[in-house]
């Protein structure tokens, strides 16, 4: 139980120290901030990955506060999200060479990461809310970090309005849940609600509001309109952080709230149908919109919406029996991890290109494989994994999710997912086609900075490794799923 405190402590103290140093020590350079924040993130990651961490799972005796838990679900999400942070910080090195306010940038990323870790571990709506805000508020600033660019600022304004709206909606939903039960502890909420003979209609309203609140972060379809604009306008490293990191935190929060606090018998049917509907709409719309984009960032944004649709399947099958749920949760967790890696990699390639050339249109990628062979290869692997081509990691998680849908007797949902996967291959293949087949406009070699190459190659290795040996992750996610399902 000490671990979450420790991690948040490490991240927060580095986050606090960084601007302090930046203020007092005039010689503060990009390298310093980069190294310091990497140390903080890697230390936290190492703490989560060490074996003692797992022995602590069983030991629930040391507890400082009832609002935190330390379970495998939380560890899993924290690992996935911290990995994204590491990716982002690592590749920010190039981006920050040209920017001011270095210390603040890294510090805000660390603050936000601390918030994400906390979300993964909270068992109390109050703490969840505060952690949610700790994650969100720094990202408002980060989205508008490029103060001289209109696009960045527009992205920030839109993101801010929608972000605070999600705060408001979330708050309203939480207030209803609190009004129904008189408590904020997730376990207690479930206990009290399940003791009632009737399901209060207000709980339905509350869950819809919570779906909407989380959905704004998760990029579920009716709440997705800000996503492409923000991802396009914000500095691309920040978009990576938003798409691969904070979005996952939305799923972490939603999983906790919906599978621990609100799985009520009377509610489940309405829920599963709503979620199944949302899932189908989200993936279909995301994929179709992605097909028509001419801008790599918007394409990736829409594909990220589609990916959110796949993960939503897990909520839709909550009614389908323990086995389906177990498969689904484990698939969703795996997909979260995969998506964190694949999306980071894809966005970082876009970031690299934008930094080099300032261009985000797809035409620039024509003949990319000649100009930057290694980057093109890594990008291809990431895209194929996003499309769910076996045996890359993205295949297995989608496979688990779809199987769960079949297991829960929702074959149509699985079918929709599979058809969508096939559809999505089309636009990923179009990018690959551009990179390998189309003639480039010019044959100028593009520099492949070491930081990017390292992180992209690492992601390729991870994608292939998890693809060839998915067992390592799946056995863990299944354990986490069992912990989550009563």
């Amino acid at each position, binding site marked *: 139980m000490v671990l979450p405190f420790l991690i948040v402590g490490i991240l927060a103290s580095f986050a606090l120290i960084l601007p302090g140093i930046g203020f007092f020590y005039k010689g503060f350079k990009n390298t310093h901030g980069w190294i310091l924040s990497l140390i903080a993130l890697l230390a936290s990651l190492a703490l989560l990955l060490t074996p003692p961490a797992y022995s602590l799972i069983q030991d629930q005796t040391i507890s400082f506060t009832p609002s935190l838990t330390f379970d495998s679900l939380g560890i899993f999400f924290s690992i996935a999200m911290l990995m994204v942070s590491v990716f982002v910080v690592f590749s920010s090195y190039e981006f920050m060479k040209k920017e001011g306010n270095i210390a603040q940038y890294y510090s805000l990323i660390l603050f936000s990461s601390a918030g994400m870790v906390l979300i993964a571990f909270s068992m109390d709506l109050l703490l969840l809310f505060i952690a949610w805000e700790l994650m969100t508020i720094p990202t408002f600033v980060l989205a508008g970090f490029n103060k001289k660019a209109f696009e960045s600022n527009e992205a920030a304004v839109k993101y801010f309005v929608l972000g605070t709206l999600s705060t408001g909606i979330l708050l309203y939903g939480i207030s209803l849940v609190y009004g129904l039960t008189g408590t904020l502890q997730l376990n207690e909420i479930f206990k009290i609600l399940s003791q009632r003979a009737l399901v209060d209609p207000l709980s339905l309203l509350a869950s819809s509001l919570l779906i909407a609140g989380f959905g704004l972060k998760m990029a579920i379809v009716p709440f997705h309109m800000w996503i492409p604009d923000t991802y396009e306008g914000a500095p691309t490293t920040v978009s990576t952080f938003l798409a691969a990191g904070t979005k996952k935190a939305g799923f972490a929060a939603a999983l906790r709230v919906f599978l621990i606090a609100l799985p009520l018998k009377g509610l489940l049917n309405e829920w599963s149908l709503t979620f199944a509907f949302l899932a189908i709409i989200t993936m279909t719309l995301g994929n179709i919109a992605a097909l028509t984009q001419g801008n790599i960032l918007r394409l990736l944004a829409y594909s990220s919406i589609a990916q959110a649709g796949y993960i939503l399947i897990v909520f839709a099958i909550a009614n389908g029996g323990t086995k389906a749920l177990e498969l689904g949760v*484990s698939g969703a967790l795996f997909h979260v991890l995969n998506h964190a890696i694949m999306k980071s990699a894809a966005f970082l390639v876009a970031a690299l290109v934008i930094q080099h050339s300032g261009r985000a249109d797809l035409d620039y990628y024509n003949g990319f494989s000649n100009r930057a062979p290694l980057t093109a290869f890594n990008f291809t692997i990431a895209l*194929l994994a996003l499309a769910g*081509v*076996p*045996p890359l990691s993205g*295949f*297995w998680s989608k*496979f688990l999710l*779809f*199987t769960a849908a*079949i*297991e829960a007797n929702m*074959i149509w949902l*699985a*079918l929709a997912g*599979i*058809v969508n*996967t*096939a559809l999505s*291959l*089309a636009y990923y*293949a*179009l990018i*690959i*086609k551009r990179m*390998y*087949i*189309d003639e480039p406009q010019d044959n100028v070699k593009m520099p492949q900075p070491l930081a990017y190459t390292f992180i992209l190659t690492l992601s390729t290795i991870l994608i292939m490794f998890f693809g060839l*040996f*998915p*067992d390592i992750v*799946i*056995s863990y996610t*299944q354990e986490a799923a069992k912990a989550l399902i009563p």
Partner: protein
Amino acid sequence: MILTPILGALVTYFTGKAGTKVVRALALAFSLFALALSILAYGSILTENKGAELNFVEGPYPWIETFKGLSYYIAMDGLSGPLVLITGILTVLVVLGSYDLITFREPLYYSLILFFEGVIFGVFTAQNLFLFFIFYELVLIPMFLFIGIWGGPKRKYAAIKFLIFTSAGSAFLLLAFMALWIFSPNTLNIPELYGKIPFWLQVWASFATLIGFGVKLPIVPLHTWLPDAHVEAPAPISVFLAGLLLKMGGYGFVRVNIGLLPEASRELSWIFITIGLVTMFYGAIVAMIQKDLKRMIALTSINHMGYVLLGAFTGNLLGLSGAMFQMFNHAALIGLLFMLSGYIHEQAGTRDLTILRGMKQLMPKTSLLLIVGSMAAMGFPTFSSFLSEFMVIYGAISLNSFYAIAIAVPLITVGYFMWMMKRAIFTPSLSNHYHDLPSHSFLHLAAYMLPLILFLAMPWLMLNIINPISAKLIIGG
């Protein structure tokens, strides 16, 4: 066995800087090595007469503990043997044939060829449905790049069309396999699934695989990607496409539908056979009106694959063995025809049958090969393709005499090949700037005929390996 070419692919790619000669030599060496392996494997199955059993079993090694169904399980039996053999042969021939026809980005090309070979080996030997599916999907990537990079003028369109059709097809396949997995969560090893699937599931799975494999085969309403892909692909790749990729569909039908879903296959055989007949007729008739030599050959292969579907679902020994035999023969003969069309295109500058003439005087060697190849494609009794077509049709007739109309198909085929030959070869030419084949190419192309003649002369070489497995499949179990 699978690893050899894939390893070769990596080596070839990374030696790419050393120059194209090294790359070619390496690719040839690796493919020859793979060919030797496959001949050895084939030979040992043949001599020990173990066509019905699994040989060279690797596994099942559990791959993913939590998915009980998935294991690494590879083996060869009488069904995979001939296909593995022809894969080995075709790869060597394609590597040889690419010397003249592929002129840029060689390292990538040859490494993709070897990668493709390895994956195809995987498809034909996988004994686990998941493993099979993974290889099946992986084939798409090199093929997509082949068509897209080295293809003709409309290559981009053809590549994307190919990818979308086939990936949509495999989506259905995945759905079927997932359903099977949910039904039997502990294993998807093909030998362990025999006869354990309830009938209703078999029916649903049959429909899904009809689409899934049907796209690859291709059956008629789903075939439209094929002519485009063939026409745009470079000649050596067309050989792969027609010779091996289409076989994946046929192989899938035999392995999965006949093998795992026998009751449904029996009940629904009229659907499959009807589609097979339609495919045969369609392929033959549409081929007749083509002006482009290559497009004509592509449509011929649709026609030929119809035989496979027809034979496989006749449910008797003759038909099934004939279908398997046909797959092997077709791979060899279509390889020859496509390579020829490639050479003709290069030498004569056109494949348009309305322009192409007088090859008899100007390109005697080419004409000879074209005549021979066409004869093989017609099912002329000097080649083993005659044997297999005969077996299929005979098998079909013995099932239901109505299927005798299938006899009409070879007649149509003969008709349009004759017309083509009259046009292109025997009509006197108007110009005389065509060049004939160099003799090394002639030898290389003639090599395609070897298996066809060999297996006509000694059909037992093939049938001894095929018959046991088809007998086993028909009896069930």
